């Protein structure tokens, strides 16, 4: 390999690993997403021209930040000729005079954290938070995000443009919130990461590669966040995603059919993810501040540590659901608890809980409530009741793999 080839390979590597970091710092220095993006592209263009000739600088990231900033200031100056000069000249002079930040390397990580919090600001619509985070923090293209969320690209592009306009016009700050507001704001950040993960996770069977990438992207983002902000909730969410992701290989057959937990080949579970996820659960629990993500992760960890469904500590899982219900009293969590109770105390106990829930009215259109009801009837040998409940579940689900799974169960009932 020639030196030039080696250099361009290095530049490519630096682009992959550092460009979003450089971008985040440029957003702070320039206060504008579009200018920062332009500056980033210009900085790499300059690197491609200069580095093969002059060699790679000792601190490539610092070099790129300062090149990007100067290019952006040039752009502002050029534009200034077409607008009222005095307004802009002042801003540009301020920027140019500002001494280069001496603690640049320390700032870099803070800048990424600031960028995450800005993109997930709760005053932006949830869809906009997701799109903006994937675009600006992760560097996914608008087309990639549109594809993954099955949204037309122009709609998504517009959503991003509107969000950026709101950040500018309402002056959404580019900062990590103060301690007293951190809990509320962190909640949106974690929710966005989890939504990205779920999009890649629940659509995994038979879906395109991009969606699997979304789960990986969410995990990467959570790892970064945990490194920058070691809060127990962040550890809990990362643990939850790792433990869920660990089962990916066992959750569906080669044909894309769904394999339920009790039928999964546990040797296919990703042991490394399980070790890492379980350790994170322990870390979050030892903090004493135990949030909903951590409890869900703990449930997942109990499953991960068992050799089979029968060997699972269902009593502990029911206990964890009780704790979760105190934090988030939702019917879906009650349903999940009912399933655990059925495993612990038998299908009759589970059935009573699920039927009470359905009668309560909140889960009347939720296919998994009927799927659970059907399963309990099936295990109790109530063939007719099981058939009726499978029918209701089938009528309510849109997802093909779930439909196939329910149809299989329905067909397997004794005539």
């Amino acid at each position, binding site marked *: 390999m020639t030196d030039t080839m080696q250099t361009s390979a290095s530049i490519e590597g630096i682009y992959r690993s550092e460009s979003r970091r450089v971008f985040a710092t440029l957003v702070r220095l320039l206060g504008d997403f579009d200018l920062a993006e332009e500056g980033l592209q210009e900085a790499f263009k300059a690197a491609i021209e200069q580095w093969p000739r002059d060699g790679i600088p000792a601190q490539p990231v610092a070099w790129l930040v300062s090149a990007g900033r100067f290019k952006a200031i040039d752009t502002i100056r050029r534009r200034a000729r077409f607008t*009222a000069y*005095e307004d802009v000249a002042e801003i540009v002079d301020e920027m140019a005079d500002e001494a280069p930040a001496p603690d640049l390397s320390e700032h870099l990580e803070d800048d990424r954290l600031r960028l995450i919090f800005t993109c997930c600001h709760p*005053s932006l619509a949830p869809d906009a938070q997701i799109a903006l985070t994937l675009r600006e923090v992760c560097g996914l293209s608008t087309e990639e995000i549109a594809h993954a969320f099955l949204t037309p690209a122009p709609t998504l592009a517009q959503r991003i443009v509107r969000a950026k306009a709101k950040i500018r*016009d*309402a*002056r*959404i*700050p580019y*900062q990590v919130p103060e301690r007293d*507001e951190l809990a509320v704001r962190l909640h949106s950040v974690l929710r966005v990461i989890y939504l990205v993960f779920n999009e890649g996770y629940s659509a995994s069977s038979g879906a395109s590669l991009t969606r699997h990438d979304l789960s990986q992207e969410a995990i990467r983002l959570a790892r970064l966040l945990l490194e920058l902000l070691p809060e127990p909730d962040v550890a809990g969410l990362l643990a939850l995603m790792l433990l869920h992701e660990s089962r990916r290989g066992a959750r569906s057959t080669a044909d894309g059919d769904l394999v339920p937990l009790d039928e999964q080949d546990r040797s296919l579970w990703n042991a490394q993810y399980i070790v890492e996820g379980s350790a994170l659960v322990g870390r979050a629990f030892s903090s004493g501040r135990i949030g909903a993500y951590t409890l869900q992760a703990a449930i997942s960890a109990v499953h991960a540590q068992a050799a089979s469904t029968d060997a699972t500590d269902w009593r502990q899982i029911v206990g964890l659901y009780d704790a979760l219900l105190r934090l988030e009293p939702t019917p879906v969590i009650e349903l999940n608890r009912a399933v655990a109770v059925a495993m612990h105390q038998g299908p009759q106990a589970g059935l009573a809980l699920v039927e009470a829930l359905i009668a309560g009215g909140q889960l009347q259109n939720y296919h998994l409530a009927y799927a659970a009801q059907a399963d309990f009837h099936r295990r109790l040998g109530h063939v007719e009741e099981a058939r009726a409940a499978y029918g209701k579940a089938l009528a309510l689900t849109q997802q093909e793999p779930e439909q196939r799974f329910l149809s299989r169960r329905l067909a397997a009932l004794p005539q």
Partner: protein
Amino acid sequence: MNYLCLVYLAPDQLHACPDNVCFAFGQELRESGHYVAAQALKPVESATTVRIRNGQMSLTDGPFAETKEQLAGFYLIDAKDLNEAIHWASKIPPARFGSIEVRPVRELELTGLPSMSATV
């Protein structure tokens, strides 16, 4: 930057928050240096809407739009960014009964007006 915090309340909640509580908050806002202006409003039944169409003025009884919640008052605050504005908006006492819409104030673009050319 100025932000207008619009206080919306359902009609039966208009007096849910005692005046002296609102007054105390106004004092706190003044002392913090974020106060620009604030006022509570009479119910929408007292409103008159003014329109000019084809050069003719028309007056209508009532508010511009009927909504479930009505505009009950406002605070104009000076904050450095949206987070600071939200921080103060969250302390507006009626936030516990209705909702507070926070809107950044737009500066009018006055280039081209004769009075501006004198200052350049």
